[in-house]
């Protein structure tokens, strides 16, 4: 580890801190329908969208109607994405003449992008036409993110409301998140990316004659406009197979910083929105603090492990020491311009949030370096988390934390003046249990099935189990990154990972909406001496404790058989 590495990590965190009140305050105004500086441009467009689609923007919805609108939108847009992939061969913007995507893969990909997962069982540049990338995949990068933000905002309204039946209007929240938040960021960000070298064109792939006379085909495409929303919407699906490691997606250290900043910006801002709308800014920062503690812990471990390198490579004769001329460390599956610090930081951020973009291959990380992204996803991606998804995810843990605190002092738990009762705790536990069950059950079945499960494993030994565990953790947590060695483009994996993504999206959305509906109806009771304050460092510690303990109890046995045992074997010189 180097001082410069830590400086880069500190700089990244500082920029996230700075943007939090700016974006968070803006979102608070946006979702309480106050005037924003973009009204002159966006308000006419917004009205036009409602007029064309028949949305009544004054209509408020109960949580059930809100959920139905979201589900119907997801189903319809999922089917359109499926059709687009199947028909791409006959549609325009396909200069490479790429054929229809096969049915099972098209199903997996449609689910993947609708659920904000962006798991990719295909290689972008050799599978998807420019039209599919733009109108299918990048489109879903906008709306799946906007839907996630909508749910988070609805949850926050549920907390803030007093004796109300309704929690907002899904269509309005989704459209406002798209037009006033995501689209402006994407427009400006695209130009920043292009100025740095991210390509943005519709031309056929170039064939060049290399200096030594070989032919090299260079893939092109409308990359920047997709790349920017892929990061800020925590989607993560790369235009190219190599994702953010590809020089056309992420050419410079500056684009790399912007990519990582994008992953956290909105999610971090939402903690401030939470504080703003519930009238307790300090509560927002207390939740932010818990996220930051878990993030710094993760990046420290990952950076340490990757900088320390792989002792087996030293035995093979490679020099992994740090010098002024080289960052050293485990460089297998990493790019020179990012080195160790930026790859470890990116891996931690992309899995703390539900982004899943990668600028190096997690499969080639050291065992402990790879454990960090895996554990991040298994904690439910509440360390800032996906846009919206991180917020409603962490609020589930907040409810559990308040509940546990209530048990400890023997009083009915309260959260910002609302009594937390059986229904809320049942719904919160439901999300936690379904999440773990889906990951562990599918991993278990795959790991004992040579025919369709372990046959897809690329790296043998304990690392093989890690590949399976990673795949189902990533799908269920709607992350989308992979231990990429796994051959996941098979009927079994395409189907079961598709199911895991659906469970991981909608069973994580519906119970929180139910909690929001229930909280919204409750009376606010004044705080008393028995109320556990949710604005203090003590609350932050409790929240971190609950997140870690729930995650550790659930996943430690599986992790100990994968990355932990591989770590010790690696240091004993064992190879597979």
């Amino acid at each position: 580890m180097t001082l410069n590495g830590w400086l880069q990590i500190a700089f990244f965190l500082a920029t996230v801190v700075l943007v939090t009140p700016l974006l968070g305050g803006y979102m608070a105004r946006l979702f309480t329908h106050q005037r924003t500086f973009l009204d002159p441009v966006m308000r006419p467009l917004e009205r036009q969208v409602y007029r064309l689609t028949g949305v009544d923007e004054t209509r408020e919805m109960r949580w059930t109607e809100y959920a139905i609108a979201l589900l119907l939108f997801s189903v319809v847009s999922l089917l359109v994405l499926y059709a687009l992939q199947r028909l791409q061969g006959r549609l325009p913007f396909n200069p490479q003449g790429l054929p229809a995507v096969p049915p099972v893969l098209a199903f997996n990909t449609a689910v993947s992008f609708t659920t904000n997962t962006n798991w990719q069982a295909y290689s972008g540049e050799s599978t998807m036409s420019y039209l599919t990338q733009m109108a299918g995949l990048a489109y879903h990068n906008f709306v799946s993110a906007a839907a996630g933000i909508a749910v988070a905002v609805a949850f926050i309204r549920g907390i803030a409301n007093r004796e109300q039946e309704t929690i907002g209007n899904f269509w309005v929240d989704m459209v406002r998140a798209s037009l006033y938040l995501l689209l402006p960021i994407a427009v400006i960000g695209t130009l920043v990316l292009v100025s740095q070298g991210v390509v943005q064109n519709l031309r056929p792939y170039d064939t060049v004659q290399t200096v030594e006379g070989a032919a090299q085909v260079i893939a092109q495409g409308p990359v920047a406009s997709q790349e920017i929303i892929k990061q800020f919407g925590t989607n993560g699906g790369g235009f190219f197979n190599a994702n953010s490691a590809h020089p056309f997606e992420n050419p410079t250290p500056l684009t790399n910083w912007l990519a990582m900043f994008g992953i956290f910006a909105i999610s971090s801002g939402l903690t401030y929105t939470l504080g703003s709308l519930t009238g307790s800014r300090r509560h927002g920062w207390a939740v932010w603090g818990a996220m930051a503690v878990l993030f710094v812990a993760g990046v420290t471990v990952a950076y340490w492990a990757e900088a320390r390198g792989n002792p087996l490579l030293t035995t093979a004769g490679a020099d992994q020491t740090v010098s002024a001329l080289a960052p050293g460390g485990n460089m297998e599956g990493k790019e020179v311009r990012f080195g160790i610090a930026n790859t470890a930081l990116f891996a931690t951020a992309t899995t703390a949030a539900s982004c899943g973009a990668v600028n190096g291959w997690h499969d080639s990380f050291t065992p402990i370096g790879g454990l960090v992204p895996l554990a991040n996803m298994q904690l439910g991606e509440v360390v800032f988390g996906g846009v919206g998804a991180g917020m409603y995810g962490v609020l589930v843990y907040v409810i559990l934390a308040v509940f546990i605190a209530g048990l400890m002092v023997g009083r009915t738990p309260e959260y910002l003046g609302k009594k937390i009762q059986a229904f809320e705790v049942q719904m919160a536990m439901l999300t936690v249990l379904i999440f773990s069950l889906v990951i562990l059950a599918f991993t278990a079945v795959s790991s004992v099935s040579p025919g369709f499960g372990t046959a897809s494993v690329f790296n043998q030994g304990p690392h093989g189990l890690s590949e399976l565990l990673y795949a189902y953790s990533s799908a269920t947590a709607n992350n989308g990154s992979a231990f990429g060695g796994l051959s996941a483009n098979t009927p079994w994996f395409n189907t079961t990972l598709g199911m895991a993504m659906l469970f991981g999206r909608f069973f994580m959305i519906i119970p929180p909406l139910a909690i929001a509906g229930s909280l919204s109806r409750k009376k606010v009771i004044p705080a008393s001496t028995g109320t556990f304050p949710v604005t203090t460092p003590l609350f932050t510690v409790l929240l971190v404790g609950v997140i870690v303990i729930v995650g550790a109890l659930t996943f430690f046995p599986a992790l100990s058989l994968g990355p932990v045992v591989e770590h010790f074997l690696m240091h004993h010189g064992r190879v597979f």
Partner: protein
Amino acid sequence: MHLARHLRIALLMTAVTTVLLGVVYPLTMTAIAQLLFPEQANGQLIARNGVVVGSRLIGQGFSRPGYFHARPSATSTPYDAANSGGSQYGPTNAKLIETVRANVARARTDNPGAPVPVDLVTASASGVDPHLTPAAARFQVPRVARARGVAPSDVEALVEAYTEGRTFGFLGEARVNVLELNLALDATLVSAR
């Protein structure tokens, strides 16, 4: 409950937002990008004597002794820029260790006795990494100088000139663009045989 109405909205909403966010937005951005940054938007292709020899951002394979060699590439054929990717070797995969050992053995014949920088013998993430660390470039100076029949100090100076520092002095890592360095070699120091 409101199913039919919301289904109708869902269909229309998908259509309207697809046109706006999936067609109008990317096409407009493409037009603006082509206008403002035509070089960057099209991949920064480099031509020499009227022949396009590559992209500044995309690595390519070099095997002749008079050129600096890029990092190992794990794409199906090395440096396939239409199918990017890495080796996906896990840290305890026997094939990883074998591959690195073979790469180290080959590197050592170029520059016996010097420690072999790790990036020179491990596969990159994209398979088209355009860069080497300054350490991996310097490691190859003796071979390149020998093959071109020029003084190592001249080659060293060129490496120095083509070493790009960290952005703003602290972001990213120092690096050398292999294609640009090799083109500069051909332009300034005796042509490679």
